[in-house]
């Protein structure tokens, strides 16, 4: 029997095909390539970016709210610190928290959705009632209230709370997917063959939903950035000079950026960062849509 080696060989070939397919999908629309580049840029910024600057960013005591210049492309902040440096050094925290949030949201949502959809019956009813309830409780106000009780000191904690609040949507979607996959013969067949639930969920259901989950994950990242930067912007989370939301808050409520131009660059920099990140994610999700579509994978 030569099957295993043959299998292995073909599998690498398949992987190569898949990579080629990805490349083709990306190339077909240059915008998608742009999306990948943007995300890569942010990844670079989050990992290497902060290393480019000293741990304590220099200040220029005499150039508060300096206008943009070669030296300070986005001007300086209230204290005379380069705004670009703040955005770059702040990206790590923002992205890390967003990632943690997204992971927790998706893991929790997937687990609950899978469980409810797979078990069905009473468990499903109970879990979905809870989900409904969760979706009924207003999220942002609840966060505002929570932030008075809970200090979001670490990125992990922050992600945990945002994740705990955010899994509802994912759970619903995953449940729906699970229910529809469940109707597919292969899950039933696996049960008929006596395969363990662990196997069915881990090996049969999850891989089928992987693209869906991956996409949800990316979308959850945007959601997490949204929520997190937003909370900082509202000023309910502990101060972090380089946090994008804090920058927005101080520029608008401290610097009067919506009235006068001095603090405008200070506001625009984080704003553009969020915008660009969203754009990158949107473009990549668009590409993923196509990459993971099995029909398009075939050719």
């Amino acid at each position: 029997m030569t099957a295993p080696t043959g299998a292995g060989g073909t599998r690498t070939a398949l992987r190569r095909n898949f990579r080629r397919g990805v490349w083709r999908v990306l190339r077909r629309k240059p915008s998608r390539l742009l999306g990948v580049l943007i995300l890569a840029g942010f990844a670079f910024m989050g990992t290497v970016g902060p290393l480019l600057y000293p741990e304590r960013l220099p200040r220029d005591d005499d150039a508060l709210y300096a206008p943009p210049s070669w030296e300070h492309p986005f001007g300086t902040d209230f204290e005379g610190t380069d705004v670009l440096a703040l955005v770059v050094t702040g990206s790590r925290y923002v992205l890390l928290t967003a990632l943690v949030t997204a992971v927790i949201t998706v893991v929790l949502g997937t687990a609950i959705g899978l469980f409810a959809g797979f078990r069905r019956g009473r468990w499903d009813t109970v879990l979905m009632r809870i989900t409904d309830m969760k979706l009924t409780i207003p999220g942002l106000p609840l966060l505002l209230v929570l932030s008075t009780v809970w200090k979001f000191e670490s990125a992990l904690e922050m992600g945990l709370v945002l994740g705990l609040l955010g899994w509802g949507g994912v759970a619903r979607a995953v449940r729906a997917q699970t229910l529809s996959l469940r109707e597919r013969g292969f899950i039933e067949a696996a049960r008929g063959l006596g395969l363990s639930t662990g196997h069915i969920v881990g090996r049969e259901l999850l891989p089928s939903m992987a693209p869906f989950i991956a996409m949800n994950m990316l979308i959850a990242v945007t959601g997490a950035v949204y929520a997190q930067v937003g909370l900082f912007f509202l000023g309910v989370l502990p101060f972090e000079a380089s946090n994008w939301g804090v920058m927005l808050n101080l520029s608008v409520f401290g610097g009067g950026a919506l009235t006068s131009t001095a603090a405008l660059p200070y506001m625009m920099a984080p704003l553009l960062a969020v915008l660009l990140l969203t754009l990158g994610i949107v473009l990549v999700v668009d590409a993923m849509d196509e990459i993971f579509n099995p029909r398009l994978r075939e050719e």
Partner: protein
Amino acid sequence: MALIGARARPGKTALARRLAGHLARGLVMVLVVTSLSFVIIRNIPGDPIAARYEKLVEQGMSPDQAERATAVLYGFMPQGTVWEQYTDYMAGLLTLDLGQSLSTPGAEVTDMLASAATWTVVPVLAGTLLSFLLGVTMGVYAAIRRSGRLGDLLSISGSLLHGVPQYVLALLLGAVFTTLWPVLPSSGTADIMIEPGLTAEYLGSLAQHAVLPVLTYALASYGGWILAMKSSVVTVLGDDFILAAELRGLSRGTVFRYVARNAILPLFTILALSLGLLFGGAIFIERIFTYPGLGLLLFDSIANRDYPLMGGAFLLITVATVVANIVADLLYSVIDPRVRSGEESA
């Protein structure tokens, strides 16, 4: 329809049954969520009176005066044990009495909510409808041109607007229209110099001040509509009955109406749901444009530890969401004959 004899459809009773079930479940949901929020609200640390004292003092009031001004508040604080407060609160709910505000003592919470609601509901409704109409139209266009440049651009911009947080849009619009090119007011509901009344001047000012909030809201939700409509239209276009209609030689207009009506159906549900969310969703916009709606009221009530007001706002939001859910479901069953007959109820 005169040409084709109308036949009484079974469904009235089914609809009523559905409604009753929904109402019961909604009531339970409201009770649970209200109790939960009561527990949470009462456990927020921070003394509203001490904070008000310090604020007044910071504004330059002398300590004596500030003390006098805050002493008044003790009478408005909820009395008794937490359990008593809870039962009081729930009993109040039955009579729609939400109590009096702490931060503006003497004001009925219901009145405050009502007056703030105007400033939220009108602009958000306007924004939603605007974006709905625009998004749906563009969504159809994006679906028809989905393989072209323009369709691509439409859907990418839709996704982008959908993904970008509201406050980013609000700040960007603010930066452009109030700072760089100051043609629009950045805060408030109307020019405070203009006497309110049914005058053209005042209404014009109202409209002018509403432009940014409405525009932000419209832009932020527009993306969602365009995406939803596009995918809905694409699905319907792929449905066999559309091809069948074309092959029967139905006029373009009729085919378009078939597509549009079938595609827009699921969107009405989302519309109803999103209208339910509007009671709590505008915190960012209202904070940025200092627009005195429900979001800002809620934000301030939390900052001032105005327990009754907070409770009232939470209740309003919850009820709105629950009601919107019910309406969405009923709406769906009224406009979709498939659901009406109970075929897809399982």
